[in-house]
């Protein structure tokens, strides 16, 4: 990138961005966007292939895969939805209060707990999944509680991996939060729970919607944790897709994926009006 300075007086928005607008930067932008969107676009394209195997170019096009994909995957799809709703809901219930506490009370203790609560994000999913499974069996052996393969354990495991997202997003949505209103409410005699209910939570509304959505999605697409924790005969959508892939690689998989993309896109755009999801990953 060149360092030739334009004269100070001629600076407008476009020139100010000039160095980032140069061909080099544009090439980076384009390559980045291609890397992200190419596989998605190709998945949509493949879902219309007529052939039984995915070969490029296709012999013809059809919508038949959409028709057959739903009956094939309906049961795992429902399991995944139920799981993601339960895990997302519980994760909000546990995560939002934690987020509030972490942003309000900052000391060594809460800092340590904050690190702990964000830790599930940093650990390989496959290792947590295996460890929880073996741990559940150890506990079951001593307590006779039917833990291994129970829905409760699966939901809790998903809560574990979604909590860091809820907390991250809540913390982000509270960074610019003005404590003055809270202090005013408190000085007027409102009890702390009432302050949270009446002042803090409404101020966090967007953050809560966004984090609930993220929790739902992280749970919905999780493969590694569920792999070991599903009960016999139960399957989630990502597991069902992986198992299907082991025996067949046909456009059916693409079709169910497109339906998934469209469904998620629809929810996103519906929520997008009142929650700035773009800010969430901070």
């Amino acid at each position, binding site marked *: 990138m060149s*360092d*030739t*300075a334009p004269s*100070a007086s001629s*600076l407008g*928005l476009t020139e*100010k*961005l000039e160095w980032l607008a140069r061909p080099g930067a544009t090439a*980076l*932008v384009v390559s*980045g966007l291609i*890397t*992200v969107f*190419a*596989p*998605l676009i*190709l*998945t949509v394209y*493949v879902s219309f292939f007529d052939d039984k195997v*995915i070969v*490029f170019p296709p012999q013809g096009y059809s919508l038949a895969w959409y028709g057959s994909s739903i009956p094939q995957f309906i049961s795992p799809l429902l399991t995944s939805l139920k799981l993601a709703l339960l895990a997302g809901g519980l994760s909000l219930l546990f995560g939002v209060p934690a987020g509030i*506490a972490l942003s309000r*009370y*900052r*000391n060594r*203790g809460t800092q340590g*707990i*904050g*690190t*702990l*609560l964000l*830790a*599930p994000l*940093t650990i*390989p*999913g*496959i*290792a*947590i999944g*295996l*460890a*929880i499974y*073996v741990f559940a069996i150890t506990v079951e052996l001593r307590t006779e509680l039917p833990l291994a393969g129970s829905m409760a354990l699966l939901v*809790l*495991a998903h*809560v574990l991996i979604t*909590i860091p997202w809820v907390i*991250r997003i809540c913390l982000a949505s509270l960074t610019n939060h003005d404590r003055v209103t809270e202090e005013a409410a408190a000085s007027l005699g409102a009890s702390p729970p009432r302050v949270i209910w009446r002042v803090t939570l409404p101020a966090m509304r967007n953050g809560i919607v966004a984090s609930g959505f993220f929790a739902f999605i992280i749970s919905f*697409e999780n493969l590694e944790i569920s792999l070991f924790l599903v009960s016999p005969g139960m399957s989630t959508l990502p597991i069902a897709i992986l198992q299907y*892939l082991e025996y067949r690689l046909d456009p059916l*998989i693409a079709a169910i*994926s497109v339906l998934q993309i469209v469904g*998620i896109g629809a929810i996103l*755009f519906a929520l*997008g009006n009142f929650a*700035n999801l*773009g*800010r969430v*990953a*901070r």
Partner: protein
Amino acid sequence: MTLAAATPLPSDRREKGHLAAASALLTPATAVVAVMLVAPLLLLLRMSFNRFDPTKLMVEAATAENYTRFFGDAYYTDVMITTVVVALSSTAFCLLFGFPIAYRLARWQSRWKNAVMLLMVLPLFVSSTVRSIGWMVLFSHGGVINLAATSLGLGTMTLMQTTTGVIIGIISINLPYMILTLQSVVEGIDENLEQAAESLGAAPARAFWRIVWPMALPGTMIAAVLCFILAMNAFATPVLIGGPRFHMMAPLLYWEFTANNNWPFASALALILMTTTLVMTVLANKLILGRQARA
């Protein structure tokens, strides 16, 4: 991750009230993490000191042989090096592609902005398994890239079962995280600062490196660390794009657990992977943010 800065507290009574409130709010989440993460990890740690027997499978012991086996066999250290190289290079490309995209998005004024932001969120929600299928169509023997290359007379070009293919696949998955984080980081930097710098005669590039970059660095580190961690732990992409001859840590430990039923060694692999990731992120934070603090 940004939880520093203790607020001074006026009185003891208030401090006690805060403690009660904080623990009431934090206990449920902490309990879940303690039971579902800390306890299983401790069990994993214990198992990593057990011994493997091909018949009885796991024998209680207190041996370090699983760790010495890892460090004594070039195969395992090679797999770890591959994993780190893939994670570092995919993170570097995520930064390289992500920053210009995030910067333009952040400074972009348009009524379409919200829709475009949502479009950037969408890919996060398509599982890595599904996205790998898209790459297969592009990369494979009869795939788009190869077809284009042969018709242009460039010879055959397949990225399936190559390190490059895996890195591209991982970038594709991690880049949206990077873009979204950096976008909000850049938006948090006052545009007037840049203008002020430039009106004082700084070249735009100079204004960027002196004003925007230092302010964006902490947030950028958070994004880069997230991408690095996700890449270190990648499971579906290396298996589906990399193929049987491409080995990374997460699939290796899964294989060791399921195919070999060698729990002690699989546990050791898991802990070594976690420790490596943790040490590298802490070091990077110290090195990069520490240098900035001194500067």
